Structures are given as C-alpha cells and as structure tokens.
C-alpha cells in the first residue's frame, strides 16, 4: 500500500530526517492558523493516491497573501479523476541542489538495494536509461541493522557529507516499516541544511497488519470484497469475466482471451481450495461487474473437487452465461451436474476461451 506524502514525511521525520515545515489541511478554513509558521513562500500539494501529481496540476505555489485563495482552487480541482480532500501546505525551500535517494527490494540479489544520484530533480527512470553511470548502487545485507560506513561513503561520493546519516535513517525506515520502496525525490540541499522535499513509502501488503493498518487503501471496493474471501481480483476494460485457480493460470487465461481477439473484464484468482461456497462467491463477485457479459471458469488441479466447483457455480445462479473448464477429481460428477443445469463444460482452456470470445462478440 502506498502511503500519502504527509504520512511518509511524518514517518521519516520520526527517524530524524529533516522535512520542510508543513501542515495537513482538509478545508481552506484550517489554513490561516498555520500561515505564520510557513513563512512567505508556500507550496500547496494535493494528497491524492496517484502518480504524476505535479504534472497533473496537483502542486501549486503561493505566498502568504494568496495562500487561501490558491488552496480553494486546488480543493476544487480533480487530479487524474480524483477529488482533492487533503492538502499538505508546506514552507517552500530555498533549493541549492537536488538529489535522488531510494531503498528498494532487489529481486536478483534478494536484498535491499540503495540508489543515490547527484543528478536529481528529474525522473529517475530517465536517468537510469540515459545516464546509468550517474546512479550509485549498493546492495545491503538484510541481516544487518545498519548500512556499514564504507557503503555510505561509496554512495555519497562527492555529495555533502550530511547526506550520509540520512541514507542510513531511510534504510532503517525501509526495514522497520516493512517498506517495498522508501524514496526521497528530491533530497535537497538548502542554506539551512539538507531536507526531504518529497517522500514516498510503499508498505508490503503482507505486513499491513503488523504495521498497524486495518485497510488497504489501494484497493477498490470490489477488490476489498474479494480480499475478504481470500481472492485476488483485478478489474480490466473488456466484457469477459475470468475465474481461475492460481495466479499464473488465471493470467494465462486472460492472455488467451487476447490471443483469440477478445477482452477480459476482470481477473479473479480463487487461490487454494475450491469449495462450493468459495466458488459461489467468486462467480457472484465477477458477475457483479456490469460490463461482464460472459464468464470463463478455468480450474485445474489434481486435488480440486469438480463436483464442489459445479455446486458453487449452480448456487451462484447469475444471469450471465458461465463456460467451464474443469480438471481434477470427480470430473464426471461435476460435468453431469453442470450439464443437467444447461452449463457448457469444455475440455481445454483454448476451447473455453474461444467459446467465450464468440459469446461476448
């Protein structure tokens, strides 16, 4: 789950990383009380859960005189379709130089990867593509609580020494807050010292509970409903609903729809165990998306009981057509139960997908 900027900044400040003076406001009326603490130059930043906020007009500059009016403008905006409910009002920094600092999970080494570049202020992906030599990388040891000083020296290079402790502090945040990404972009030098001008934290969804989060805000309502049942669920643009067991098989079913010229409406992985009740919930959830015209059920596994699956599909009793591919134990019983109720059951995933694409067209 991605934290909002003000949440990320609050966290890194607790670890001793300097952040600009700032206040979160939920209406313009809250702003005047804070103005004397923010100085003459102010920046207003919409706290919306989308990337590319600056380019989409979600960050506005202001001064003491026009701050309230500017905040009003920002509150009335929509940023990439999302309403602005919270604004972070901050002191505007007098920036001398911009750096980039992040800690991520490196799949290849299975360890934390720290990236630092003095060529900050631009999109890090562009720097990585065009000037990879400008990015300094260090792979840390997850069994150590701190980054050893020699690694910090390697990262900092000729940049100001005050950045060293900030790197280690961000590493601690990354480890102790179960982050998949801890990023300061830009990290800036000013006449008053080094500051994190922006901060981004993504917390591991599998660690939300122990980090004290009760809901995953990144999920839509239907995705949350799916999560309650232990399903993985993703919404797409087409007309064919997809239910499978196992992420790989479900993804592959989705791809096969594309291969045969169709478009999937959603993706539901029922995960392990396909008891009739789980299957019923899955079919109803996928069918509840209005764009779904037909549903493909593709369940495979030596231990999946086909009669249970058939029971679940029949119990769901949804208006859309459901086309089924089942392989596992009690296959004949499952097939007979479905046939009796007029459901179509085909032998391979190629066949079910082809059929569904025809029905949807």
């Amino acid at each position, binding site marked *: 789950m991605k934290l909002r900027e003000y949440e990320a900044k609050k966290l890194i400040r607790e670890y001793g990383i300097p952040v600009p003076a700032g206040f979160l406001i939920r209406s313009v009326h809250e702003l005047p009380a804070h103005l004397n603490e923010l100085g003459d130059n102010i920046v207003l930043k919409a706290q919306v859960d989308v990337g590319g906020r600056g380019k989409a007009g979600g960050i506005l500059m202001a001064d003491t005189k026009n701050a309230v009016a500017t905040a009003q403008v920002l509150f009335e905006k929509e940023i990439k379709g999302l309403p602005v409910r919270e604004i972070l009002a901050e002191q505007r920094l007098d920036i001398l130089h911009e750096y980039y600092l992040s800690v991520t999970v490196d799949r290849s080494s299975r360890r934390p990867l720290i990236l630092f570049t003095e060529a900050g202020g631009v999109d890090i992906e562009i720097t990585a593509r065009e000037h990879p030599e400008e990015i300094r990388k260090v792979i840390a040891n997850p069994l150590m609580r701190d980054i050893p000083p020699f690694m910090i020296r390697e990262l900092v290079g000729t940049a100001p020494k005050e950045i060293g402790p900030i790197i280690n502090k961000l590493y601690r945040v990354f480890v102790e807050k179960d982050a998949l990404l801890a990023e300061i972009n830009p990290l800036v030098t000013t006449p008053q010292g080094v500051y994190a001008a922006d901060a981004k934290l993504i917390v591991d969804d599998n660690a939300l509970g122990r980090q004290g989060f009760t809901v995953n805000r990144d999920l839509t309502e239907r995705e949350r409903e799916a999560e309650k049942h232990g399903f993985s669920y993703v919404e797409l643009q087409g007309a064919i609903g997809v239910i499978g067991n196992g992420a*790989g098989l479900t993804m592959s079913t989705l791809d096969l729809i594309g291969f045969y010229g169709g478009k999937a409406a959603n993706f539901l992985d029922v995960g392990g165990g396909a008891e009739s009740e789980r299957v019923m919930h899955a079919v109803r959830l996928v069918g509840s998306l209005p764009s779904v015209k037909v549903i493909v059920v593709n369940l495979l596994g030596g231990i999946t009981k086909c009669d249970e699956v058939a029971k679940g599909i029949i119990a769901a009793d949804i208006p859309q057509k459901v086309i089924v591919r089942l392989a596992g134990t009690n296959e004949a019983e499952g097939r007979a139960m479905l046939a009796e109720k007029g459901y179509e059951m085909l032998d391979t995933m190629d066949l079910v997908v082809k059929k569904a694409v025809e029905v949807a067209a």
Partner: protein
Amino acid sequence: MIYGNKKSGVLVQGATGKQGEFHIGLMNAYAKQIGGRGVVAGVTPGKGGKEVHGVPVYNTVKEAMRDHDISAGIIFVPAAAAADAIMEEAHAGIPAIVAITEHIPVHDSMKAIAYATMEGCSVIGPNCPGLLSPGEIKMGIMPAGLFSRGKVGVISRSGTLTYEVVDELTRAGIGQSTVVGIGGDPVIGQTFVDVLERFGNDPQTKAVVLIGEVGGNLEEEGAKSTDLPIVSYIAGISAPPDKRMGHAGAIVEGGEGDARSKIARLKKIGVPVASRPSEIPQMVRDLFRDHC
C-alpha cells in the same frame, strides 16, 4: 533429480496443521508407489510425540534430525512464523528447503533467505508448490498424477499453470526430469539462474521449459546463464501496469517487468517463446529435433 531422490528423507514443518497433514499423506502415498523414503518426520512446536499418518512429530527440527536421516524440509507453517521455520531448518543443517507458505512479508523472506544461504542451504519458494522429480521424489503439493518421467526440466513461478503445462507435456508423450515451482513472491530463494545451474549438472535433463510471468527480469537473467536449450512462456501479456496479478511478485512497476519486453528480450537471445501453453509441447519437440 536435482534437489532430492528416492533416498532422501523429508521433514515437514507444520505437520499437524490441515495442509501439512493432508500433504504428508499425499507425499507418502507417492513415495510408497515409487519406492522412496518420503516424509520421515514432522515438526510442530508443542505437538511432539504425536503421529501424523504414522509419521512421528517432534517439537523441534534438531530433535527430529537426531532420530532421522533428513536431507529436505518442507514448510507449511503460517506466514507469521514461516521465516523462523526456514531459519530453524537451515540452522539444523537441512540442505534443501521448500517453503509452501504464501503471504510471508518480504523483509522476513530477505532475512530468512540470507541466513539460509549463509548456512549453505537452498530455499525453494516461498509461495510455491515445491518440486517433483517423477519416479524419484515429491517435495510439495504438486498433483503427481499429471507427471511422467523423462528428460525435460520445467521451472515456473506459478503453481496451477505449471500443472497445465506438465499435463500438456505428458499427454504429448514428453516426460519430465524435475519440475520446480520457484514461487510467486518478489523475493524467492532459488531463482531461474540457480535451478538452471542444477539442471545443467543433471545428466537426465536435456531441455528446459521456463515459465515466467510479469514482474522483475529474472527469466532473462536465467535464460542467459545456461547452455541448455530452452522453450519459454510468459504469462501476463494483458496485465495492466501497477496491479498485482494474484502473485505478490507479478506486478509491472516503474515501466519494468512487463510481458512484452520480457518476451522480446528472450527472443533476442534466441529463446523461442510460446504464445499460449498449448503450443509448448510442439516447440519442445522442435527443440529436440534441432539440438539432439
């Protein structure tokens, strides 16, 4: 076989749980059928002295190791305790561990895998179905009925998709040497590179089917590391960016790890890539015709 054989004794942690108990039964049924040792000991803290399908249960891995010759461990314990279970097995000296458990926090996995590596132990998974070498050993939850013995190795980040491919191969008369599910998490112990290295040293394996998906670039890293002929398939060509597609590790982020560029890079280094699973058997046949 690459991680174990008929003579390997297997230990199961989380033996008295629903999953553990169920799969001890299946693993030992398979072992009996092929004349292997199968699961010889179970571990669940506080349940020492019990039996599961005739298999003795111990409180700790060390105690089980004292009474039995064990060379592989399988973990079914819940996510919150799974990293500890991996480290316990590594510390006790078990050389190969399969971690079935899903939803282990990534930081726990990083620590447990770093620790196990330090102890000289290979971790398969987490969030994986384990492995099966037909006629030799089953370490995990793969449905044995679909498999047949042969010379094609299979490596996959997925579970059921692997069964789909194995089923297609078996129906086409193409047997498998070992099938390894390396896991769907962003951080896993044995990656494509590690398993391919084992296949490279395995006289039985003559070709490999590499099943990948969106997220990261370890498929390409693996394909580059081996001289074995490979057929690949990558799931998730229709996956939208920044969405987790069922597996924690199946996500296109920062414009990286999407299926199209993965497929393009694999093809560029000469690896044929199937556009759907049902094409794989014919492509494997072509591979044998061209290479053998």
